[in-house]
């Protein structure tokens, strides 16, 4: 699942947060910059006011009393204020005192203060020129902006770490677990529940929803597979039934329900083999309806079929269930196989069959058909094959036909 395009959610989130924080920091920097600028300007004004209220009177007294050292100190005191970059005192009598960076005299707009005499009467004693310290503004701006940026940097780092941690713990790890689980999922383990090692919590979240969805999906697939199995089983049963029907059809005669010749040639050899191996008796009876063609001609083929079915039914009714079996050999000819039966017993059975057949048959339309059959019996002789046995029985049938029909020969 890991592809070249893979990018963790945390990266996306962190990138967004960093972008947002940068934007916020820039915005706040602008605001802070404006505020700082105003603040510094106010500070400048306050300092100038301070100079007017405290330094000017001192200067006034100092100039008046010609205390040049005091005047010099005052000017230096003024410049010592961080807000002031340069001060120049032009005394009315021509003397000049200056302190600070004289270059500011040209670069900066100068503030000018007249120095009144101590008693406030008369001509001003001089003029005080003051240039503010521009470095202070830059310094204050730098500090303020640095504070903003460092603050945001720390905040962003903190938020990103938190996001990364929470995402890893709450999202990435469970999701990876789910992805692994899903990739390992096989039909055999379909019902195995998704196990996420997450600490217990009072509330559900999206991960729980996805996990629940997994469980639901698994259950649905599982149910679907179960239904498929049932359907396959049903179809198989139906197929088996159909196959069994087909098989039944392949070994039975469609009209009479007796076995067909195919079955005889398949099954009789194994009967002979068993009789041979265990030295058990086995007899075969050839039975052929007498004068059946005239019945067909006189009553129609459907009636003929009806009669054939009656004959088969009468034969079956006289045989031992599950031991003896009947084959429609062709036309109106039947072969009855009597395992565990010697010739004498077979003759008795044959006689019973002849008797059963020779009763009149009442057709569906109420007409009555009188029918008889001739039967040839042959008992298995050791080492004899199927063909020989059948030939001998057929020969006895022929003899019975020759002998006047409706009789048993063997």
């Amino acid at each position, binding site marked *: 699942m890991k592809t070249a395009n893979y990018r963790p959610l945390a990266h996306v989130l962190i990138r967004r947060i960093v972008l947002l924080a940068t934007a916020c920091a820039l915005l706040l920097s602008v605001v802070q910059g404006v505020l700082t600028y105003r603040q510094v300007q106010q500070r400048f004004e306050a300092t100038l006011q301070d100079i007017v209220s405290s330094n000017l009177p001192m200067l006034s007294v100092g100039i*008046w*009393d*010609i*205390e*040049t050292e005091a005047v010099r100190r005052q000017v230096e005191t003024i410049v010592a204020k961080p807000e002031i970059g340069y001060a120049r005192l032009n*005394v*009315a*009598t*021509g*003397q000049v005192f200056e302190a600070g960076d004289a270059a500011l005299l040209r670069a900066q707009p100068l503030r000018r203060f007249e120095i009144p005499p101590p008693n406030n009467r008369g001509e001003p004693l001089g003029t005080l020129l003051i240039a503010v310290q521009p470095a202070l503004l830059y310094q204050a701006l730098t500090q303020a902006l640095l504070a903003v940026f460092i603050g945001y940097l720390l905040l962003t780092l903190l938020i990103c770490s938190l996001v990364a941690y929470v995402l890893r713990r709450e999202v990435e790890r469970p999701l990876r677990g789910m992805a692994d689980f899903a990739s390992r999922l096989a039909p055999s383990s379909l019902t195995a529940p998704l196990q996420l090692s997450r600490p217990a919590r009072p509330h559900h979240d999206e991960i729980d929803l996805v996990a629940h969805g997994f469980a639901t999906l698994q259950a649905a697939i599982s149910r679907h597979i179960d239904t498929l199995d049932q359907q396959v089983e049903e179809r198989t049963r139906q197929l088996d039934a159909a196959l069994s029907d087909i098989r039944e059809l392949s070994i039975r005669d469609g009209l009479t329900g007796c076995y067909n010749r195919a079955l005889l040639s398949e099954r009789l050899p194994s009967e002979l083999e068993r009789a041979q191996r265990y030295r058990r008796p086995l007899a075969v009876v050839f039975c052929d309806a007498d004068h059946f063609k005239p019945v067909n001609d006189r009553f129609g083929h459907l009636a003929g079929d009806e009669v054939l079915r009656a004959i088969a039914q009468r034969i079956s009714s006289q045989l031992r269930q599950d031991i003896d079996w009947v084959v429609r050999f062709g036309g109106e000819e039947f072969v009855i196989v009597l395992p565990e039966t010697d010739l004498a017993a077979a003759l008795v059975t044959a006689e019973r069959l002849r008797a059963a057949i020779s009763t009149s048959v009442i057709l569906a339309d109420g007409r009555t058909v009188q029918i008889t059959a001739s039967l040839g019996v042959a008992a298995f002789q050791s080492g004899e094959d199927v063909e020989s046995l059948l030939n001998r029985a057929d020969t006895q049938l022929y003899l019975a036909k020759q002998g006047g029909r409706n009789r048993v020969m063997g």
Partner: protein
Amino acid sequence: MRRMLALLLCCFSLPAMALSVTFINPGKHDEVFWLTATRAMQAAADDLGIRLQVLYAEREHPRVLALAQQIIAQPAAQRPDYVVFSNDYGTAPELLRLFEAAGICSFMAFSGRDDQPGQPAIGLPRMNFRHWLGSLEPRAEDAGYLTARALIERGRRAGLPRINGKLPLLAIGGDRSTPSSLRRSEGLRRAVSEAGDVVLLQEVHAGWSQQRAQEQGDWLFRRYPQARLLWAGNDLMAFGAMDAWRRRGGTPGKDAFFSGINTSAQAMAALRDDSLSALAGGHFIAGAWSLVVLYDFHHGHDFADEGLELVRPMFTLFDDRSAARFMQHYGKLDFSRVDFRRYSKQHNPRLRRYNFDFRQLL
């Protein structure tokens, strides 16, 4: 009274040995006024048989206290019998405390008691501080007054321009705290008010410094272009103002007039070449007179009957002749021609009241 007797006895305890006095000189060792004062004191000490030690504070106030502690730290036998000091810059209370604790008798010369507002008063001599015997000060106001009056007279004679009928006058004082400085200014003001046709435009303070006086003079002449009279609290400041005037292209004594105080050779010369128009001095002798007073006290002639805090006229206004005489007699700071014993009550039992005027020494 008993207490005082005890005190006197304490001070007489070493009659066999020579009387010893230490003078804490507040000035610099090469400062003309204080050097002159010291020389005069030494002459008096020689006449009276006093062992005199002079310690210079070099005009640094904290050093005065350090010197006092140095005196106290000496073994009792080596300590002086008396300490003479000047109450400059309000150092007296601390000095008195130190000497009182050490039991050393002290006497103030030149500058006496000056109770500052906001500080505990030191009281009168021999009260709070029993070892503080008293003080002797020149009447400083005289100096200011005499020089101012002479300066104004010179201005009138020169027919200087007037403002509203009055002669404009400038003043450069010493400082704002030393009593002698203040009194000199008071004398100036008294002279101005007595004159009636003079207006004191402004008084500034140069801290006794020639350089600062020059600077302030420059400012003042620019500030008051009409002013042609300048009174100074001492000679150096007068010289500073004169320098400033010269730098402006003027000639002191011709187009502007200056007055000073002190008896330096330079001042005398300036007076004689007329660049300095008025000069008063002679109060350096206060130190020598103090030794006379202490000598008499030591020998049982207490000055208490003349007052414990003596403020006496000492200043002399010099003219050409007296200046010439001063230079002739004392130009080399040699005061040996004066016999200070003549002014001692011990040596002149009939002397009832001290005369400290300097004029008698000329």
